């Protein structure tokens, strides 16, 4: 397995655990209402978000060593944004439809949702990059 492929696999695993951890904290602490009022909960979620991002960056930084990534890896990496684009686009569509349907009668969406949309897209973006790289290796053989 190529070093980049290994990192993509680990990143996917970390990303899934990371996403689940944020969702679990969110649900366990009381959901959207609590998020607006509970500063401690917000800090935990932000901590998880930044921690996950740092873990991802540190893992990808180890690829900077010579001989870790070659032209084929770079080609595969350059194609991964197509998966990222679609994943973000679909996530945005799901968020837009869900929020519109749920809050149609109120005529307004709680202010906290842009944060949640941003955080979810952030996680989806990282996961989709790893998936894009893994698809690239699978297709290239």
């Amino acid at each position, binding site marked *: 397995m190529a070093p980049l492929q290994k990192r993509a696999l680990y990143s996917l695993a970390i990303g899934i655990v990371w996403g689940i951890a944020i969702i679990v904290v969110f649900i366990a602490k009381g959901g959207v209402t609590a998020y607006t009022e509970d500063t401690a909960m917000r800090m935990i979620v932000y901590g998880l978000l930044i921690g996950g991002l740092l873990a991802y960056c540190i893992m990808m930084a180890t690829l900077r060593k010579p*001989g870790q990534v*070659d*032209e084929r890896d770079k080609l595969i990496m350059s194609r991964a944004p197509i998966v990222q684009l679609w994943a973000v686009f679909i996530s945005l569509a799901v968020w837009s439809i869900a929020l519109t349907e749920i809050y149609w009668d109120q005529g307004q969406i709680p202010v906290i949702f842009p944060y949640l949309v941003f955080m979810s897209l952030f996680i989806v973006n990282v996961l989709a990059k790893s998936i894009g790289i893994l698809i690239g290796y699978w*297709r*290239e053989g």
Partner: protein
Amino acid sequence: MPNTRVKNRIRRLRFDHNEMTQEELANHAGCTRQTIIALEQGKYVPSITLAFQIARAFRVTLEEVFQYEETSK
């Protein structure tokens, strides 16, 4: 993915060079072992730079390693 029209003799040349391992060739050519595997299986066509580096690792000309096959439609 279909095989490309650029064929190569990397596997043959490795064996002709004291059974050079894929890892050794990758180190000489400056790529990963997985790329050498993909090249030998005909699943990847290298850039001109990597092609020259591989030829240089074997001390042969580019065309002794890579051949472009004309195929009729």
